[in-house]
């Protein structure tokens, strides 16, 4: 390291680290170790939100509790046009799991996938369930 000013010299690696990671991430995008950290950055004002739901025989369940799925359309896991949902990672994770675990026959558990559309009415949350695809699953 240069012996001019130890303090300033020690800032140089920080500046290099900043430039490499900042511009590397802007250029490369979502490719580890780079990222643009845009998780929920794209939002706009809306009066109604949507929470992805996954129901097994009508009860909330975890998608990974099932090993094979029949009749569900992973594309329809996504929020329909006009429905704002900031929990996209849940949708993508669930649809990827279902797409990777197809079944050749209907299973014993009825599955419903959709959204719990919520809005704030006089300080209370109003729920409106929207089912976008149905099918069945094997535990």
């Amino acid at each position, binding site marked *: 390291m240069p012996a001019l000013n130890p303090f300033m010299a*020690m800032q*140089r*690696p920080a500046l290099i680290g900043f430039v490499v990671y900042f511009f590397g991430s802007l250029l490369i995008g979502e490719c580890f*170790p780079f990222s643009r950290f845009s998780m929920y950055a794209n939002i706009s004002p809306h009066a109604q939100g949507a929470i992805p739901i996954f129901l097994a025989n009508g009860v909330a369940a975890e998608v990974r509790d099932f090993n094979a799925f029949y009749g569900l359309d992973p594309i329809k896991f996504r929020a329909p046009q006009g429905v704002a949902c900031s929990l996209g990672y849940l949708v993508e994770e669930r649809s990827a799991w279902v797409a990777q675990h197809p079944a050749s026959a209907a299973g014993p558990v009825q599955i419903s996938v959709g959204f719990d559309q919520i809005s704030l009415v006089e300080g209370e949350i109003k729920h409106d369930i929207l089912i976008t695809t149905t099918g069945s699953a094997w535990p």
Partner: protein
Amino acid sequence: MALNPSRLFLGLGLWVTLGGSLNTLRLMGGLGLWMGAGLLSFGIGFWRWYKNPLDYLGIFLLVLPISVWAWLDAFYTHQGEHHGKILPMTVMMAMGLGGWLARWQGASPQLQAQVGQEAACGVVAATYGLAALAKLWGSGAQWFAPDSLGMLILERSVGAPAGLAELRLMVASHPALCSFFAFGSIFIETAGILFVWAPARRPLAFLVLALHTGIALLMGYVYLEWICVVIGLAYSPGQRRGSG
């Protein structure tokens, strides 16, 4: 070796990240084990401040399997799932590579550690700068509208534990609070760029702590490892004003 609180924080950050890797182990089989071994090895090496050849073995064990893991992980989960792991890992890589380059130039072990820490501070600054830029680029002025952040918080009130649900509902019901938090998050993330400058690091660490506490309470994303890494770096030896 004297115990330094900053090492405790960084060590805790490592262990929390290791916990995340165990989840990867569950999802991905043996790859998570490799990742855990790499982190552990690097953690041991880091603890010794780059004085041991194990440090560099740790870097290799860390970088290779984690890179493979991240590629595979991207097919299974959304980016939000592994964002919590990115900062500690890139920080560790920067520390390792920075220290390695300094060693290559014949620097003393102490200087190797300091160069590595400085490079890591640059990565931290870039990370928060990128987060701010993503929001301003993606949402523009709409980020500050009460119904934007308010709806995000409201969505996360459903199914949350009772106390948190009430808190989130209360904040979502007050537009001024939503705008305040939206502005505050952008302000702190933008200010995070100043982490490249040593005198700003300790005040920034407290702002970052406030930011992540707010995110955890209102959004449910607990980035404990990020807090540990930022505080650990800000209070590392050699971070005192002008000491170099």
